[in-house]
Structures are given as C-alpha cells and as structure tokens.
C-alpha cells in the first residue's frame, strides 16, 4: 500500500509541482533585468505550460510553438539577397534571420513560402506563426497584424542613374524623366518635385530599362537594388543618387493570441541587434548595414536602460502609407461596385478616391485648358507676326523670318520643346508656371511658323495676280485666304499640347501619369485622359471651323 498512491493524490501533486515551476518562472521573469534573462524566463514558462498540455486552443502561440517544437515562418521565395529559393536550397538575409530566431527559441524552423499578396492572410488564418517577408511597417498595415519591435531592416526609395548625371537632390530632378513601378506609394513625392514619371509594371523592367537606355533615372526600393549595386559592372556605370521615404521592415505575428510570441521575438531581435548578429547576416548577403548599425548603437545604449525604453530610437514609428480619401470616395466606390456588379465592367477611378489624386486631377484639367488656350493664342500671334514679316518687301525683315520657319520646320516638335526646356533651365527658374509658358511659346512657334508661311505665300500670290501696285488690305486678304491652313495649324496646336508633358508641364497627361504611379489600377485613368483630349480637340476643331468661316466670308469666299 505504501508504494501505491491514489490517482487523485498524484494529480494533486503534479498540479502543485507545476504551479511551483510556474511561480518560479514568473518570479524569474519579474526579476530578469536583461533581454537574455527575460527571454530565458519567458521560454521556460512557455515550455512548462507546453509540458502541461498542448491540446487547448486558447494557449498563446508561443506555447503552441513549443508544443510543436517547430516555428512556422512565412518567407518569400523570389527576393534576391533577402529570400531566394532554389529547389530545396534557401538563401538570403531573411532566411538566415528566420533560422536564427527559431534556434534562439530552441525549436526547428519550418519555412513556408508566402507572397506580398497572402502574407497577412497567412498570419490571420494561422498558416504561419510569424512572417519575415520584406514587409514594411506602415500605417496601412499596422492595424492588420502585430508588428515586432524592433525592426530588422529599413529600406528607402532610391534614385539610380548614370554616374555622369549631375543629380544631388530634389532640386535636380525637376523636369527629369524617372522610371518607376506602378503602385509605388513614394512616387507621388517624385511627382511633387516636378519629375516626369514613366510607369513600368515590375522592378525587373526598370533594370532592363536602364540596360537598354530606355530609362536614364530609375526609382525603386533600395533593397531591390542591393544586388545590382554590389555588381562591379553595374556600379561602374550607375550610382545611387539619393534616397527618400524610408520604411522600416518588421516581423509580424497575428493580432490576437500571440502576445507571448510577440514578446519572445521582440527580445530575440533586441539581443540580435545588440550583439551585431543582424549586421553579420547583412554583410554576408552584401546588403546595406547603416540602419542596423544605428540600431546596434541604440540597443547597446539608450534602449538597454529602463529609462530609455520610451526613446523614439527604441520604437520607430510606422511609415505613412495612407492617402487621405476624398469626401466623396464612398460614392465613387459605390459607382465602381455598381458598374462591376450590374454591367460586369471593372472600372477604377483613383483620381476621385484620394485627396492627393483629386488635387492633381483638377490641376491637370485646368492646366490643360490653359495650355490649349495659350497655345492657340500664341499660334495665331506667331502666324500673324511671321506672315507679316515674311510678306514685307524688306529683305532684312523677310529673311530672318524665313530662316526661322526653315529651322522650325526642320526640327521635330518634341525636339523644339526640349530646346525650349533647355533654354528655360539655362536662363530662368524651372517652375510649373515657367515650363507652361515655355511650352506655349514653343508650340506657338512650331504651328504659327507654318501658318505664317502659308499667309506669306498667299500674300505673294495675291501680289503676283494684282501686279506691282498690289491691292488694298493685301495682308488682311492674305490672312483671310489662308483660313484653311490657319485652321489646320490651330488644330495641330491643340493636338500637340500633351507633348508639353515631356518637358514637365503639369497638364492632364502628366498629372494622370503621376496618379497612376501610386494607384492600384491605371487603365481607367488612360480612358479618361483619351476622352478628355478628344473632346478638347473636337471643340477646337469646331471653333477653328467657325474662325475659318468668318475669315472666308470676309474674303468673299463663302
């Protein structure tokens, strides 16, 4: 009998022993002062809890990890130097980090492939315990998952260009063409500084654009260019000009049921930063270490003290990714949904959804209308001026006018605009207003010179018919008889105005391209743009026809 104890008594003894270990772990946790001690106590407590049962669903994710002896980590498979999978072989900074974290927790790492599209849902649905997958800590994502502080990397948008290009900062990019990828939230900053954006669908296309000279300057996440910049051939030709819009990268766990896992991962990262583990991994994969060096200094210094825990360096804020919606955004969304559900037409109207896009859209429409009106006025003025000079009997006046016409007729319109922009850069400040004026002048000269030549030729023909004495109101009659040519060049002028976007004029094409750079869809944007310009030109065609009718009536032709 002595040797035998009742099951009830055994259970009681077991519970008491468990309670003792728990109390001891909790006391150890409370007494711990360093991240290492706190982590050791936390893991010990989790292992104890795991030892007492792994079937409950209510246990923290950390306990379940201990039960499974496996940490399921969501990682990417296609991001060079960060996470790349080649058959059964995994390689990259994030892969090393994932394995090191699992080892620190004393469990096996199970790498689960995730993509930017499913990494958050994989966490929410419990397919993975933690995600280490190039995920930026942004205000948009912060409410969806639990990010782990501290961050394990930081990237920024960088400008890469030919080494010879003199680009030192924002002041040098106004009017420059920059290749970007669609849907990049930081592109609006480039647009705001006067850059002309060229849109590409994938970052790989940017590299191809650089190689084939399609792009002079490209902007993309610094992490994407990490490998290219470590390639001597690439680095010999191109250089990083400057960076902006930094985004910290964070590990993340599910929002609920993972507070202990979150704490364990946070302590692990604190230790890794302090001990330079992350710097070592980054160097091994030839990626930038500046952020990690700053973090190491912080976690060795101010963040390691109780007083420093509230320091900004110890808990970096998320990058702002949200664009303020317009007050009518819900109605726009309702219309989009109605079109999709009722008519099966997928329409996205990003220009109406956010305040920033709406502002650009409105400015684009106003600027386009001003540009068209200004160009038509300039065309008429130049036509009359060159027509008058080229019809005069004075060679001193006639020949310069004819030379100007020949030069303008020899230059493709886009070249004339480029020359106008270069002149503007050389002699005045390059602002949205000055570039609009330069575009109006160039387009007016291109079309007005041709119309002026037509007037001069008509005046010469009338003079030939009327004899040396000429006829009264010769020039006016010449203008009236050239009405058809003038009409054609006025229409040309209106149709040519979108070309001004090439030199950075903030007209609608330019503004819609900017909107497309940070919107998720761009097809609808370009339908709107096409409709707008066809409408504008149609109006100009009608008005020009009226002007022609008026002039022909005055000339007695109609």
């Amino acid at each position, binding site marked *: 009998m002595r040797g035998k104890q009742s099951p009830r008594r055994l259970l009681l003894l077991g519970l008491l022993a468990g309670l003792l270990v728990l109390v001891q772990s909790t006391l150890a946790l409370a007494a711990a002062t360093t991240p290492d001690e706190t982590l050791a106590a936390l893991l010990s407590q989790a292992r104890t809890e795991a030892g007492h049962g792994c079937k409950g669903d209510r246990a923290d994710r950390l306990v379940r990890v201990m039960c499974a002896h496996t940490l399921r980590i969501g990682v990417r498979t296609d991001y060079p130097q960060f996470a790349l999978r080649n058959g059964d072989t995994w390689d990259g900074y994030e892969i090393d980090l994932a394995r090191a974290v699992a080892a620190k927790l004393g469990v096996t790492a199970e790498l689960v492939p995730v993509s930017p599209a499913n990494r958050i849902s994989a966490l929410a649905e419990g397919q993975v315990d933690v995600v280490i997958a190039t995920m930026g800590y942004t205000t948009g994502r912060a409410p969806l998952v639990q990010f782990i502080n501290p961050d394990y990397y930081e990237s920024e948008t960088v400008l890469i260009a*030919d080494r*010879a*290009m*003199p680009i030192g900062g924002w002041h040098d990019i106004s009017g420059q*063409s920059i*290749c970007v990828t669609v849907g990049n939230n930081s592109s609006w900053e480039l647009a705001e500084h006067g850059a002309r954006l*060229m*849109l590409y*669908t994938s970052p790989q296309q940017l590299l191809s*654009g650089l190689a*084939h*000279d*399609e*792009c*002079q300057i490209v902007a993309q996440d610094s992490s994407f260019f990490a490998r290219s910049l470590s390639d001597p051939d690439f680095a010999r030709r191109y250089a990083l000009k400057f960076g902006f819009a930094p985004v910290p990268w964070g590990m993340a766990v599910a929002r609920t049921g993972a507070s202990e896992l979150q704490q364990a991962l946070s302590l692990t990262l604190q230790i890794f930063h302090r001990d330079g583990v992350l710097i070592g991994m980054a160097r091994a994969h030839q990626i930038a270490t500046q952020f990690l060096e700053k973090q190491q200094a912080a976690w060795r210094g101010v963040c390691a003290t109780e007083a420093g825990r509230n320091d900004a360096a110890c808990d970096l804020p998320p990058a702002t990714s949200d664009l303020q919606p317009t007050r009518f955004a819900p109605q726009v969304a309702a219309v989009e949904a109605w079109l999709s559900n009722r008519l099966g037409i997928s329409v996205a109207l990003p220009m109406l959804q956010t305040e920033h896009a709406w502002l650009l859209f409105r400015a684009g429409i106003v600027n386009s209308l001003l540009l068209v009106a200004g160009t038509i006025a300039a065309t008429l003025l130049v036509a009359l001026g060159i027509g008058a000079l080229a019809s005069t009997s004075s060679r001193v006046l006639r020949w310069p006018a004819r030379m100007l016409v*020949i*030069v303008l*007729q*020899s*230059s*493709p*319109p*886009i*070249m004339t605009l*480029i*020359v106008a922009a*270069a002149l503007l*850069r*050389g002699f005045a400040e390059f602002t949205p207003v000055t570039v609009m004026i330069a575009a109006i002048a160039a387009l007016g000269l291109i079309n007005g010179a*041709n119309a002026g030549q*037509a007037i001069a030729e008509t005046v010469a023909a009338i003079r030939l018919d009327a004899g040396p004495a000429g006829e009264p109101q010769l020039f006016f009659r010449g203008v009236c008889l050239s009405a*058809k*040519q003038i009409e*054609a*060049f006025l*229409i*040309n002028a*209106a*149709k*040519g*105005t*979108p*070309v001004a*976007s*090439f030199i950075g004029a903030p007209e609608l*094409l330019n503004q819609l*391209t900017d909107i*497309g750079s940070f919107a998720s869809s*761009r*097809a609808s*944007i*370009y*339908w709107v*743009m*096409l409709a707008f*310009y*066809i409408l504008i*030109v*149609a109006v100009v*065609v009608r008005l020009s026809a009226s002007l022609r009718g008026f002039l022909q009536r005055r000339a007695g032709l109609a």
Partner: protein
Amino acid sequence: MKGLFGGLPADFLWQVLGGIAVNLHIAVLALIGGFVLGIPLALAQVRPGVLARAAGALVALMRASPTFVVMFFLLNVIPPEMSLLSMRITISGVTIVALSLLPYSAYYIAESGLDALHQLRRNSPATALLFLPNVGRAFFVLVMASGAAAAIGVREAIGIIVRQADRTPTRLGQFALFALGIVLFGIIFQAGFALLTVVRRWLAGAALRRSAAAGGPGLTPPER
C-alpha cells in the same frame, strides 16, 4: 571637343543615324497602317448614306485624337504580350508608337484619298495624282511625330540625342547636340519637302494642261 560634349561616344553619329532609321521605320509602319485603314474609309464615303456617315464619324474621331495621348493610352492599356491564333505577340515600343500614329495617318489618307476619288470622278486624273505628294508630305509629318517615341524610351534619334545631352556637362555642349539633331532631321525634311514641291508643281502643271477647268485639291497642310 571632349570638354564640350563630355566624352561623346566614338560611334555617336552612327547611333543617331541608326535612330533616324528607327524614326523612318515607325513612319513607314504608320503609313502602311494608314493605307490599310484609310483607303476603305475613303471608299466608304464616296456615295452618301449611312456607311458614309459612319466612316465620316470615324475619320472625325481619328482627326481629333492627339498622337501623344494615344501613345500613352496604348502603352498603358494594351498588355505588353498578347496571344493571337496561339502565337505569342510582344508589343514593342516601336509598335506602340506606330499604332499611335495610325489615327492621324488613316485620317489623312482617307481625306486625301476621298479628294483624289472625287477628282477621278470629275475626269481629272492628273489632279487626282496630287494624292501622291500629299501622302509624301504625310510621311514626313509622321517622321517628325515619331520623335514622340523618345517619351516612352524607344531608341530613336531624338531619344539618343536627349540621353547624350543629359550626360553632357555644359549647356553649350547640350545645345550643340540639339543643333546637330535639327541639322540631321532638317536635311531629310528640307530635301523631302523640296522633292514634294517639284512633284506637286509637275503634277499641277500636267493637270492644268489636261483640263483648264480642273482645280487642284490645294496644299492644305496635314495636321499632326
């Protein structure tokens, strides 16, 4: 010279000439497309009726379509790769530019073609032949307009010059490069326009000789 241009590549002139060949290639493609689309549209408008009105509306729509806008529209709406009869077709930048010039080209061929058809019906074949120099003029306008390809990164002449200018350290060097481009294009355009004038005068003279009553279709400038 090196100081002015900042190390101009030895083959730069060849690059620019190669780029001009791309401009000409784009213009030829657009002109061929213009014929394919424009001639049926001209024929459809010969006799009044519903078909003529529909063709007229389409021509008016094409007339009002700005090339540069159409180019960006196609660039962003057409997928870069398409399948046609189980063949995979890659839409290149050159194709996009040629397609964007198609509305102008087809409109111009349709209008000039309709003029020529009217002249033929009036028994003025020589005047109708003025269609040919008009097409020639449209071709040079297409070459000029093909420079818009620089905006989407196509390696045509203007794009090559602009890229080199961006690498040129001095403003004077940049203007020298632009001047070179204008001279090269100018030689082509002025020679072409001179040839067209000769052809036009010869045809107009022939028309006058054949029929004193027949008036030429005029030298209405082509819209771009």
